[in-house]
């Protein structure tokens, strides 16, 4: 363990083979109060994760020796939740669906916006692997959610949807009518999902649509990937209850065939 680090200071590991970018990012994060470790590939990164307490990993996807996909798979095999991983990706390195299914916390494409990245890093290190806040939600009416920017929140009710799979930080909702105008990336929706006779009888949460699959692709059915952003305590309890046996590695499941 590093003695120079005070207890409240969070440690971020940057896995990036481009040394110029890695250094520039490291100093930016240090200036923002983080302790920073660096690795130039996935193998180096994994060694450090095994040896140090790390609060967050920021990883490039394409790296020599062991890439970001391999790294996150290895990390999630050790611990399903911690440390959270933020991917920095070039164009078409990896799809959003795949990245979240592998268990990443967030995904920024390069060139990234520094302010946005810092915000996400702060959030990820504060929330420790989840990306939602607790708030009382009653059927989508009269909710005040301060942290969700000023985006319009659409209310959506789903009764016994055909296909829902629960991830660590969101859900896949399949078979829904994705041509609906609210079904677009970035929309915030107050979901109210009731299930017939299932363990989760009813959950309410505000979620952000991260990706939309309009038609079957590579054998996967259409649907949307939704990230939890805000959730009532009772819904949180129900969802965490589902995790009791095993915490899913996937942050937002990619869906079923």
């Amino acid at each position, binding site marked *: 363990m590093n*003695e120079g680090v005070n207890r409240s200071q969070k440690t971020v590991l940057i896995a990036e083979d481009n040394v*110029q970018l890695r*250094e520039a990012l490291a100093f930016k994060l240090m*200036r923002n109060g*983080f302790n920073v470790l660096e690795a130039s590939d996935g193998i180096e990164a994994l060694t450090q994760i095994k040896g140090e307490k790390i609060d967050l990993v920021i990883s490039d996807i*394409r790296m020599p020796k062991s890439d970001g996909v391999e790294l996150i798979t290895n990390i999630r095999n050790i611990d399903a939740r911690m440390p959270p991983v933020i991917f920095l990706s070039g*164009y*078409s390195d990896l799809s959003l669906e795949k990245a979240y299914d592998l268990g990443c916390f967030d995904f920024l494409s*390069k*060139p990234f916006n520094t302010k946005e990245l810092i915000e996400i890093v702060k959030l990820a290190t504060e929330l420790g692997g989840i990306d939602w806040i607790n708030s009382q939600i009653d059927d989508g009416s009269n909710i005040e959610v301060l942290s969700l920017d000023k985006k319009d929140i659409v209310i959506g009710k789903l009764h016994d949807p055909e296909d829902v799979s629960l991830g660590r930080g969101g859900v896949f909702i399949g078979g829904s009518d994705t041509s609906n105008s609210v079904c677009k990336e970035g929309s915030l929706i107050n979901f109210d999902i009731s299930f017939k006779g299932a363990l989760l009888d009813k959950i309410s949460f505000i979620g952000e649509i991260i990706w939309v699959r309009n038609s079957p692709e590579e054998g996967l059915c259409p649907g949307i990937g939704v990230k939890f952003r805000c959730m009532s305590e009772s819904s949180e309890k129900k969802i965490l209850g589902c995790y009791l046996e095993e915490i899913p590695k996937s942050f937002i499941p990619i869906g079923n065939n």
Partner: protein
Amino acid sequence: MKRFLENRGDARIAVVDPIDSSRNMILDVLKNLGYTDIATFVDHEQFLPYLEGKSCDWLISPLLIDKNINTLQMMKLFTLEPRLKNLHTSLMLDIDSELDYLNEAFELGLLSYHKKTFVMSDYDKELSDLVSMIDLYDGDTTLTSAEYIRSFLKERHFNRTRIAYEQNLLSMYPGEVRVLFSLAEALFLNSKEDEAEGTLQQIVLINKQLESRCRFLRKKYTGQDDPKEEYWGFKSNPFGIKSCLLIDSDTDNIFNMKQYLEKFGIKNIEAYEDGEQAWEAICTDKEPELILTEWSLPKLHASLLIQRIRSHGFMKVPIVVVSSLVAKRDLSLIEEIGADRILKKPFEHEEFLETIVWTVQQNRQPTEERSFVLKIGRLLTTNRIDESKRLIGECLRNSIISDAKKYYILAAYQYYLGDYKTSYQHAIKALKLGTDQLFILDLMGKCLLQLRQFEKAYICLEKANAICDLNIERLLNMSSAKVGMGDLTEAENLVAKAKQLDSENREVVIADAAISIESGKIDKSKGLLSKLHSGSKLVSHMNNRAVSLVKMGKLYDGIKLYKRTLDTLPEKWEDLKNAVSYNIALAYSKSGDLELALQALTNIDTSADNESELMKKIHSLQVRLKKAIQKGSKLEFSSNVDGDHKDNSDYSFINEDFQSISIGRGDIGSYRIFYPIDDVSEERKKSLSKMPKFKFSNVSNDEELLSNKVFVYK
């Protein structure tokens, strides 16, 4: 501050590459990154005509060393052609054979280099990483290029060069931890462990967050977790400050500040406990490089001390007001009298050092609006006109600076040039756009004063004074306005107000003496003059006033004023007395009273010292007067003889081209910061020997300026 590629939609990119496949690959990558305005060329000969008609932000190209025009020549051109100073270059290199050219390329301002590849995703990563880095460095291309320079120097094991480079960079970014850290590493690599250790400890003092990073570096090079002891044996000076002045009656605070500053290698630190003591020391020494002062100083309040320092001609030194006792109403005064920053007491050492770093950095390379205004003002008042023009150009192009401030800066510039009408017009525009009224009203008042619009000048100055009434210079200007209006009583009252604030301020003494001369109180003005080391400022003040009277047709009032000035000046200032006599003679000559003119010069012995300019002039005037009297003719004058150097009646709009100022250190990448120690080979010298011909087509260029949202005169 140059903010490169700030807006992806606006950026204009050129890709020059003779190989179709790689050119198209880069084009596709750039499109994927969100750039829309991309032009491609097979060689620089094709690119040049395009560049003559259009501006461009970013050139991506291989070296093309065997071509008719190579990329290094193009880069050289960008440094010579001021309109191309925002054009940055990224090189696609054959890493095995072309790395040697990087020395020249970096010195010419190269932004980045990348390995030539035939895989699109490699270019995608390289370029998207570069754009991310530029964003991480807030659009600063010098700091961005520095990362590439470090990689290059590491690769080549040019460790000595690296120390020199980081030190050069540090002089532009004093106290910047990224640079300091890299310097420490370079020192370790050169086995200068003590210096490296000293630098590491400075970094931790500036920013505690970097402690574990420093530990890591130390361990890597020395194998040890901790330094042997708190090691300050070697103190490098990352702020580049040699002398510093501390003024505070709280000796504990002095002790603390001194201790920190000493840890940063500042050797010459003087400390004083009150304003009077400090002032005495300042008067007898050269300009310090940093002043830290408590606001409410005993004996002489800092507000007055700072005004004295500035009117003493010490314009460059940054001043930090360190105090818990700064009232809100003092803030505009602190800004007006030219203090750089306020640091609230009590402070943590990190806050203290952060303030020093910020102040020194902004003083060298402003990035913030207020720092720009301060620095430009300082450059103008110290006659560094080229530097100030360069900075004004930078300022006009800077999107973080409001249009109102831009007009204010232009107004200040024209005021300095003596074009008071243009200055006034710019100030009016600034006022309409609504920036700080105080500064603009003050400047407008000063312009009107010069234009002899005394009533209007007084109104502006009085309004400014209502906002902030402790500015001595303004009170004296108000007094001058009243003198111009013929209201000597009110003028005296205003000087009295200034005296109440600080009767020892040199400007106050001069103004007091001037108004005494004006109202015929010769004894009083004699007494006041004995306080001054030199009377030249008073004489030039009286000269301006007399010239102004003559211009208003009050010739004899002007001459009366000259004569009283002459009576006031003590015998020891013979040169000044002669100058005044000469002016009296000129005034008489112009009015045709040649006998009286000659008489004014009778007591001057021109035979003793014929070497001085003034004596030559006097002698020549005497000769001409005698001849004219003999012939009974008039004297002819060329327009500028009487020292009235600027004729304001002939108003012409000076359309100063701030874009065409030569480019400076660090304007493009690490231009002129990177000095490779290694000799440049003949072959490489050849690569730069001939220059491409280049000419801007003017018409489209104006359109360019407009379309690029560059600030233009309206």
